[in-house]
């Protein structure tokens, strides 16, 4: 009588000669104890590799640029990248991360940047005390955030539309305030001594914007991961209905999130105008898409694809390194944009393929 043993059944179902199975069999047969020894471990390794693909891509890009571009790996260039490309985008992206963690989105970051820049530069030009002007700039940005918060929390307008409306109104306000797009330049004699400290000064040898970045990142991380408010914010982003039923004050938490993000953008705006010594209308809009991109690049680092502080910082780093590197390699300026876009596309594709494999 022909019968099939359980052993034979097990052998038949487990043997799937996919390429990865073959490779993992080969790896398994090597006499190395730290490599994956079972199919589960191999799959885990593959998922981790794909999950860290962004960090890996960053590393690869970095190495490639160090080898291919002559001036890339010098200290002065790296510092230049950090201060110019990275710093402002990092603060804006941290604010965006906070908002996306709470389940919304903030399209008006450019408005917050520009309004704070406008207030700051106008007040300095009007001979206000520097520190008062700084505070006033942040208050201006907070006002933008409060406007967003008012639309989103009590009026329950969906964040996409609400911040879009704020963006439009902000554009109009800026056009009116600047007489149609005239930048406000600060004459060199009228600048108080400490004015450029925010943009270009250093704090124990570290450029001040980077100090602000570090402080902001640490504060945000502590807020999100180690404080009850952070728990409420994350809960709001993951399961808003459950959060509401659990007693989280949804309106207050959302309002806080948008105001905080706007204050962050206010700081970014002050750094920006301190660096260029002027207020240029509508210059904040360039940061919107990059900050969204950086935040979402950062989501690929997380196990479940949630935004995180460290992920966002990696994303901003990737974007700024690529921008700088392509410039140094000497690509035509327009091909740089194509190159950056294609690179980000590939990185995101790799991470999303990884996520799909993870679900399976």
């Amino acid at each position, binding site marked *: 009588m022909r019968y099939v043993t359980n052993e034979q059944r097990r052998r038949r179902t487990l043997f799937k000669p996919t390429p990865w199975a073959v490779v993992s069999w080969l790896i398994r047969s090597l006499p190395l104890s730290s490599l994956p020894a079972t199919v589960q471990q191999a799959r885990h390794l593959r998922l981790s590799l794909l999950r860290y693909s962004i960090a890996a891509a960053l590393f690869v890009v970095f190495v490639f640029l160090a080898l291919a571009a002559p001036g890339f790996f010098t200290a002065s260039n790296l510092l230049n990248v950090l201060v110019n490309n990275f710093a402002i985008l990092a603060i804006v992206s941290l604010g965006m991360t906070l908002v*996306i963690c709470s*389940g*919304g*989105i903030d399209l008006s970051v450019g408005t917050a940047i520009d309004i704070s820049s406008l207030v700051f530069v106008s007040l300095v030009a009007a001979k206000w005390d520097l520190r008062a002007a700084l505070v006033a700039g942040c208050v201006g940005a907070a006002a933008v955030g409060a406007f967003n918060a008012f*639309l989103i929390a009590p*009026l*329950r*307008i*969906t*964040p*996409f*539309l*609400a911040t*879009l*409306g*704020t*963006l*439009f*109104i*902000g*554009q*109009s*306000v800026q*056009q*009116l305030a600047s007489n*149609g797009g005239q930048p406000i330049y600060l004459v060199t004699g009228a600048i108080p001594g400490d004015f450029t400290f925010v943009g270009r000064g250093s704090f124990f040898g570290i450029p001040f914007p980077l100090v602000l970045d570090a402080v902001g990142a640490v504060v945000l991380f502590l807020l999100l991961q180690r404080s009850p408010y952070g728990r409420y914010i994350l809960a709001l982003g993951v399961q808003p209905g459950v959060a509401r039923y659990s007693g989280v004050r949804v309106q207050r938490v959302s309002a806080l999130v948008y105001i905080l993000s706007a204050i962050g953008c206010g700081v970014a705006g002050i750094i920006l105008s301190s660096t260029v010594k002027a207020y240029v209308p509508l210059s904040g809009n360039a940061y919107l*898409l990059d900050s*969204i*991109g950086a935040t*979402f690049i950062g989501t690929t680092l997380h196990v479940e694809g949630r935004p995180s502080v460290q992920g966002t910082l990696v994303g901003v780093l990737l974007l700024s390194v690529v921008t700088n590197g392509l410039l140094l390699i000497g690509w*035509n*300026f*327009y*091909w*740089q*944009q*194509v*190159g*950056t*876009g*294609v690179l*980000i*596309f590939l990185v*995101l*594709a790799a991470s*999303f*393929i990884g*996520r*799909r494999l993870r679900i399976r």
Partner: protein
Amino acid sequence: MFTSVMIYFAIAAPGFLALSNIANVLEQSAILGVLSFGMTIVFIGGGSDVVTGGIDLSLANNLGLSAAVYSTLVRSGYSDAVALPLTLLTGLAVGSVNAFAVVGLNMLPLLATLTVMNICAGFELVLTQNTVVQATSPLLSAIADTGPFGVPNLAYFILFLAALLIFGIEHTPFGLRLYAVGAYRQAARAAGLRINRYLIATYLLSGLCGGIAATLSVALLSGSSTGSGEMLLPVVFAALLGVVFSRRLVPSISGTLLSVLFIGFLINGFQLTNVSSYWVNGVEGVLILLVVAATSLSRRGQS
């Protein structure tokens, strides 16, 4: 809402309701309208969730790239018979990259179209070297010309396209299934619809709309323009406002048509009453917020 604004402008500005003015508004809104139709189709098929829902951010730069293609081809001496299909093909190509990224690679539409948008902007800069490329040709002149009753051809075109899309999306089985896919994807899949095909179709259609709008834009401006990326926010805005203007509070072509006309008449009315154009953006923003707030509050009152 719409009628009240119309009435206000009709009273405030003398020539508002003249046929020539209405036709002018239609002509100016044509490009925005075509792009917004494409965006609306993606909204319909993709679902309305903010983060994971369907959206096509690359439309504005798709327009820019296709317009650059058209202008460069015409300037290099190719005839319309070659340039026009290639332009539409460029739009379709961008749409297919979007479709591949969203459906094939399972990316979030927000991210995928964001990256494609940057890539399109880059290619457009490469083609035009950041200059305005002049282009004239028989077809372009014909498009920009005026037709019967002294009404511009563009006005007829937008109405014709709107009618075509309204019929195709709201009165055919295809359209109904597209709504089903967008509203509740799992249920549609359980009912046997091939989700991926519908999603691919939405992105291809929106890419095609980008190509069509590019043709209109080149006709209207006699060449490509460098500022096409700025059109993104008005397009998204118009498509979202179309939700408010539609009868069932879902994205719909007719709602989008109304919202595009609304924006057009608003800008036109401001021009006629000599209000500074700086106020336009602000008033747009305030109005949309009022409308959306009123709608959401009233909807909550019902449920």
